[in-house]
C-alpha cells in the first residue's frame, strides 16, 4: 500500500496565474493512496525541496508527485531531493502543469481542471511504480580510435596524455589521413606536413598509444565501458619488427605501374611501397594486386635486396581481440566522385582535376615536385579556372544538399598560391556564394581578391570543352548578367566532400546512428555535439559533418575530454528504465531480438516455471547495460512478456484511464 504525497508548484505566477493551485491540492486528496498534498511558491527552490524531504519523513511517503514544470526541466532535481530523504528516486512522478497547461491556456477554470486531470494521471501512474535500481558495470580503461587522420591522432594524443591507453586503427598503411596530402593550410598558409608530421611522430612514440595501421575493425560486441572489438591486421607481407625502412625494396621493385593513392593517381608507385616519405610506420606494404611475385610467383626481388630479411610473402592477416571502455569514430571523408559530372569533362580531360589533385600538384613532394604543370603535357598553365560548389548545395539526385564548408577557403588558398608562384598566370573562380565565417577567413579571401588579383565571378559553369589543347569554360556572370567564355589551360573542381564509405558499416557495427548523408549524428546537435546517441561512442572530425582543420582539432579534443570523463569512472551507473522479460510468458519467438536497435536482447535456455511445470526452454534475456529503454520490444512481443521498467504497460494504461475518466 503506497503513501503518496502531491506537491503543487506555483512557479511564482507562471502556474498560479492560470491554475488554482489550492483547488488542485484539494482535488487530489481523494485520489487513491494520496495521504498528503500541499502547494508552494517554488518547489525547485531549497525551501520547496526541504518541504518535500520533510513531508516524506513526516508522513512516511512511499512516492511523490510534483505538479510543476516539464520533467525535462526538473525531474532530476526532484529525484535527487527524494533520494536525499531516503526515497527511491524512481518513486517520483512529475505532472507537467506549466509548459503543457498554465502556459497554453488563458482561462483559470480550464487550466485548473486540466491540472487536476494531469495530477490524477501522475498519481495513477505512481500507484503502479516500483523502486528501480540502476545496475553497475565496470569500465575498461582503454579507448579505441577508428581512423588515424588529424582527428583520430589528436583525440588519441589527448586521451593518452591523460594517462589512458589508446589504440588507433587505421585502414591505410600510414596514419596522417587527408591532412598529410595537403600542401598548405588556410588561413595562415602553414605547410600541412610541417604541423602534422610532428603530431604523427608524437602519436607513434607515445607509450600509451598503440597503432594498428593497414587494419580494420572486423566486429564488435559489448556496450559502454565494455566493448570487445576484433581488429583485422592485414598482412603487409613485410615484417614490421625487422624492417628498417631503408626503402631499397621500393626502389628496386620492377612493378611500377600501380597508381599512387597518396598522389591521387597523378603518378605511379611501385608494388611494394611506402605511401609518402614521412609515413608512420615507415614500413612498406606489398600491394598484392600489383606485385609480380603474388600474381605469377616469379620475381622476389624485394626479398633478395632486403638486408634485414623483413619480406615475408607468407604473412597472413591477424585477428586481434581487445577490450575497450570507449570508442571514438574518426573515419573522416573523401571528395565525391567526379565521374558523373560530364559537363566538366573530368573523366575525359586530364587537365580537369579536383582540388585535392591540385593540392598534390602544388606540393613539393608531389608528382610534379611542386611545379604547377598540366597533367596532359607537363606545361605550366597560363589560365586556371576554379569551379566551386561542384556537387555541394545541389539537389538530392545530383550531388549533396549540404555546403562542404571548406571549399571557399581552399579555393582562395589555391588561387593565391598559384598567383604567388606564377604571377603571369590568371586565376578565375566561379562561385555561388563565398562563405568565409571563421577567424581571419574573410581577410584571407579579400587578400586573394585585392592583393593577388584573383578574378571572382558569381555564377556557375555550364560546360567545359576541350579545343586545340585548351579548355573552353562557359559560365554565367550573374553580377554582369552575361555569359562568359574563358579559354583556360586547367580547370580545378572543388568537389563536395562526403563521409568515408567505411563509415556506413562501422555505424551499423557500433549502432551509431547516421543522417541521410551518412554523417554520424550527434546525441544532441547543440548540447552533445561529440557524442553518438549510443553510449560510449564518440565522434571526432569530418565523420560528423564538414569542418576545417581548426574545427576538427577542437572537436577531437572535445571528444577526448568526453572519453577521459568516461574512462576516469571505475563503474558506470546504468539507466534502470530498461526492458525486462517475464520468463514464464516468453515463448522464445525472437520478435524482440529482431526489432532491438541495440542488440541488447539475446536468447538463453533457462529453467522456467510455467503453470507449475518446471522446464528448460529458450527465453529472451535483456542486457540491461546495453538496453536504452526505447520500448520497441515491449510492443512487438506477441505474448506480452516484455515490459519496460518506468513505463510499464500498466503504468501507461493507468494514465490513459485517468485522463479519460
Amino acid at each position, binding site marked *: 500500500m503506497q503513501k503518496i504525497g502531491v506537491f503543487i508548484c506555483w512557479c511564482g505566477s507562471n502556474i498560479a496565474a492560470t491554475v488554482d493551485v489550492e483547488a488542485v491540492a484539494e482535488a487530489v486528496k481523494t485520489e487513491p493512496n494520496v495521504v498528503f498534498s500541499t502547494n508552494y511558491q517554488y518547489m525547485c527552490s531549497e525551501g520547496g525541496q526541504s518541504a518535500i524531504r520533510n513531508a516524506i519523513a513526516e508522513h512516511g511517503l512511499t512516492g511523490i508527485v510534483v505538479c510543476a514544470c*516539464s*520533467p*525535462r526541466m526538473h525531474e532530476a532535481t526532484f529525484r535527487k531531493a527524494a533520494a536525499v530523504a531516503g526515497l527511491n528516486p524512481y518513486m517520483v512522478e512529475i505532472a*507537467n502543469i*506549466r*509548459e*503543457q*497547461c498554465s*502556459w*497554453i*491556456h*488563458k*482561462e483559470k477554470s*480550464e*487550466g485548473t*481542471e*486540466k491540472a487536476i*486531470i*494531469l495530477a490524477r*494521471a501522475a498519481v495513477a501512474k505512481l500507484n503502479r511504480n516500483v523502486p528501480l535500481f540502476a545496475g553497475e558495470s565496470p569500465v575498461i580503461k582503454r579507448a579505441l580510435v577508428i581512423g588515424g587522420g588529424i582527428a583520430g591522432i589528436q583525440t588519441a594524443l589527448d586521451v593518452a596524455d591523460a594517462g589512458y591507453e589508446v589504440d588507433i586503427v587505421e585502414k591505410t598503411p600510414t596514419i596522417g589521413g587527408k591532412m598529410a596530402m595537403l600542401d598548405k593550410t588556410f588561413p595562415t598558409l602553414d605547410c600541412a606536413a610541417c604541423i602534422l608530421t610532428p603530431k604523427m611522430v608524437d602519436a607513434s612514440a607515445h607509450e600509451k598509444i598503440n597503432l594498428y595501421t593497414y587494419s580494420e575493425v572486423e566486429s564488435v560486441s559489448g556496450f559502454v565501458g565494455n566493448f570487445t572489438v576484433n581488429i583485422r591486421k592485414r598482412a603487409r607481407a613485410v615484417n614490421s619488427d625487422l624492417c628498417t625502412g631503408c626503402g631499397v625494396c621500393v626502389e628496386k621493385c620492377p612493378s611500377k605501374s600501380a597508381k599512387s593513392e597518396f598522389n591521387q593517381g597523378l603518378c605511379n608507385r611501385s608494388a611494394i611501397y611506402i605511401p609518402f616519405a614521412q609515413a608512420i610506420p615507415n614500413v612498406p606494404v606489398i600491394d598484392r594486386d600489383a606485385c609480380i611475385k603474388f600474381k605469377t610467383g616469379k620475381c622476389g626481388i624485394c626479398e633478395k635486396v632486403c638486408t634485414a630479411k623483413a619480406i615475408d610473402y607468407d604473412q597472413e592477416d591477424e585477428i586481434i581481440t581487445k577490450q575497450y571502455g570507449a570508442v571514438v569514430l574518426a573515419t573522416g571523408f573523401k571528395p565525391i566522385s567526379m565521374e558523373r559530372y560530364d559537363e566538366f569533362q573530368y573523366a575525359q580531360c586530364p587537365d580537369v582535376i579536383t582540388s585535392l589533385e591540385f593540392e598534390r600538384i602544388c606540393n613539393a613532394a608531389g608528382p610534379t615536385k611542386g611545379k604547377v604543370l598540366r597533367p596532359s603535357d607537363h606545361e605550366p598553365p597560363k589560365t586556371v579556372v576554379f569551379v566551386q560548389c561542384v556537387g555541394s548545395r545541389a539537389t538530392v539526385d545530383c550531388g549533396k544538399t549540404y555546403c562542404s564548408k571548406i571549399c571557399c577557403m581552399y579555393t582562395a588558398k589555391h588561387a593565391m598560391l598559384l598567383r604567388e608562384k606564377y604571377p603571369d598566370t590568371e586565376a578565375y573562380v566561379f562561385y555561388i556564394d563565398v562563405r568565409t565565417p571563421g577567424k581571419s577567413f574573410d581577410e584571407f579571401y579579400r587578400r586573394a581578391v585585392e592583393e593577388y588579383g584573383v578574378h571572382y565571378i558569381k555564377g556557375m559553369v555550364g560546360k567545359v570543352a576541350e579545343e586545340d589543347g585548351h579548355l573552353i569554360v562557359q559560365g554565367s556572370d550573374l553580377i554582369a548578367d552575361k555569359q562568359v567564355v574563358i579559354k583556360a589551360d586547367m580547370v580545378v573542381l572543388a568537389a563536395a566532400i562526403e563521409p568515408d564509405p567505411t563509415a556506413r558499416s562501422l555505424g551499423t557495427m557500433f*549502432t551509431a*546512428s547516421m*543522417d*541521410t548523408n551518412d554523417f554520424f*549524428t550527434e546525441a544532441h546537435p547543440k548540447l552533445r555535439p561529440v557524442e553518438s*546517441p549510443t553510449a560510449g561512442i564518440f565522434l571526432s572530425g569530418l565523420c560528423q559533418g564538414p569542418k576545417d582543420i581548426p574545427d576538427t582539432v577542437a572537436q577531437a579534443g572535445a571528444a577526448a575530454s568526453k572519453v577521459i570523463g568516461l574512462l576516469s569512472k571505475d563503474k558506470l551507473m546504468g539507466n534502470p*528504465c530498461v526492458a525486462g522479460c517475464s520468463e514464464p510468458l516468453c515463448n522464445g519467438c525472437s520478435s524482440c531480438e529482431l*526489432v532491438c*536497435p541495440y542488440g541488447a536482447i539475446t536468447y538463453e535456455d533457462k529453467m522456467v516455471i510455467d503453470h507449475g511445470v518446471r522446464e528448460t526452454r529458450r527465453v529472451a534475456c535483456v542486457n540491461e547495460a546495453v538496453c*536504452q*529503454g*526505447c*520500448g*520497441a520490444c*515491449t*510492443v*512487438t512481443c506477441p505474448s506480452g512478456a516484455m515490459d*519496460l521498467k518506468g*513505463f510499464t*504497460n500498466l503504468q*501507461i*494504461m493507468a*494514465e*490513459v*484511464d485517468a*485522463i*479519460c*475518466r
Partner: protein
Amino acid sequence: MPINEKGGAFNPLIVAFCCNWRSYAGADLAGSSRLNYPVNVKVIRVPCSCRVNPLFILRAFQRGADGVIMCGCHPGDCHYTSGNYFARRRTALLFSMLDFLGIEKGRTRVEWVSAAEGAKFANTMNQFAETISALGECKRLEDIRCVESEI
C-alpha cells in the same frame, strides 16, 4: 457548436502520445512560446513512439477518448535510431483496422514533431481538435462497463 448527447457543449477528449526526446520537447516549446491549443488535449509521455502499444490507443477509445494522436521524431531522426519506423508501420495497420471498426480515419493521426517545432505542435493540435469537434463524440468502442461503473 457541436453538442454532446446530453445536450451540453461538446468538448472532445484528445489523448496525445508524445515521445520523450522530440515531440514532448516540442510540446514543451509550444508552452514556453505561449502558443495556445485546446485544453482538452492531454499529453502522455512515452520514451519513444515505438513504445505506444496499439492497446493503449484502443484503451483510450474504450474509455471515451474522441481522438488519439501519436507524435514522434521525424523519420530518420529517431533518438533510438529506428523506433519511429516501427511506430509508423504499426499505426498504419491499426488505424486502418480502427477505420474498419467505425473509428473514422480523422480520429487517429500520426505527426512527426521535433523539439524545435513548438509551433507545429500547437498547429497540429488545433487542427486535430477542430477535426474531432466536427466529427462529434466517439461512442463506437466505449466500454459499457466503464459507463456503468460511473452510474
